[in-house]
């Protein structure tokens, strides 16, 4: 998930990651509880938009740091592998 100004809605993250809603929302819930991700409602009035408000998710500073560490943990052992 990239860091954008508005963030991404659950459906957008689902499309990007190819995760089904049953898997995606519990993950987002856990990440939010852990403070790795934060979410907020769309500021526009749903009546004016003519559709329900979206909730946007954004990665936090802590989340970005932890993600980098986790990524390194996964990538470093793989760097030594030779694919033949």
């Amino acid at each position, binding site marked *: 998930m990239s860091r954008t100004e508005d963030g991404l809605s659950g459906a957008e993250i689902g499309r990007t990651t190819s995760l089904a809603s049953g898997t995606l929302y519990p993950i987002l819930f856990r990440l939010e509880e852990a403070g790795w991700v934060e979410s907020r409602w769309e500021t526009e009035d749903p009546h004016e938009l003519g559709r329900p408000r979206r*909730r946007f998710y954004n990665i936090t500073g802590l989340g970005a740091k932890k993600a980098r560490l986790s990524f390194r943990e996964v990538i470093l052992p793989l760097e030594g592998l030779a694919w033949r």
Partner: protein
Amino acid sequence: MALITALGVAVLTAALSKLLAEEIADWSAWLIRRLTKTAVSRLPENQRERYSEEWESDLNERPGRIMKLRSAAGFLRAAFRIYLIDERNQYVERWLQRIRQADQSYARAAAAVNALQSGGLCDFNESLRSGVDFLQLRLKEAEEIQRSLESNVRDMPGPVQFAAMKKLFARRIREIDERFDRILRQAEQIAQDSDQMVQTLRKRKRTD
């Protein structure tokens, strides 16, 4: 005659297909609403309002009825897992809160022990030195037990495993709960004892 019959069958098939398509569309819309509503009702109470709105907007973003239906079915699974995560988090939070409370009591006791040692209060009465030593020993022991409980909380299994564990080992969970209660009472007792010891010694030093 055959042509008229074939034409009649074609018209009837077309009409029936249209009717069937409309029926399926109506049913799928009803099913999507029903699934979402059921999923929301299975969430922890404090999350229902938020997810009701969020999932409605999620469905709105999905193209086609099949995608919407798939997403709505997923909400049921999501609600079940969120419920389990929330339940586990509540246990963890309750135990961590007790650890924090015990920490405060230990800090109070440690401050008292410090005052007894560095403030010269111990020198005042040699026999009270053993009391301070005993207090320090209790504090160390209690802190060690607390650290081990703290690592238990940190290493707690994930939500699904925890839910299974909760059912299978309800007695064990109760024991952990009771152990935390005991630790908390013990920590508070140590803190009170040390406060009292400092006060008594200060009073006696003043009167002498």
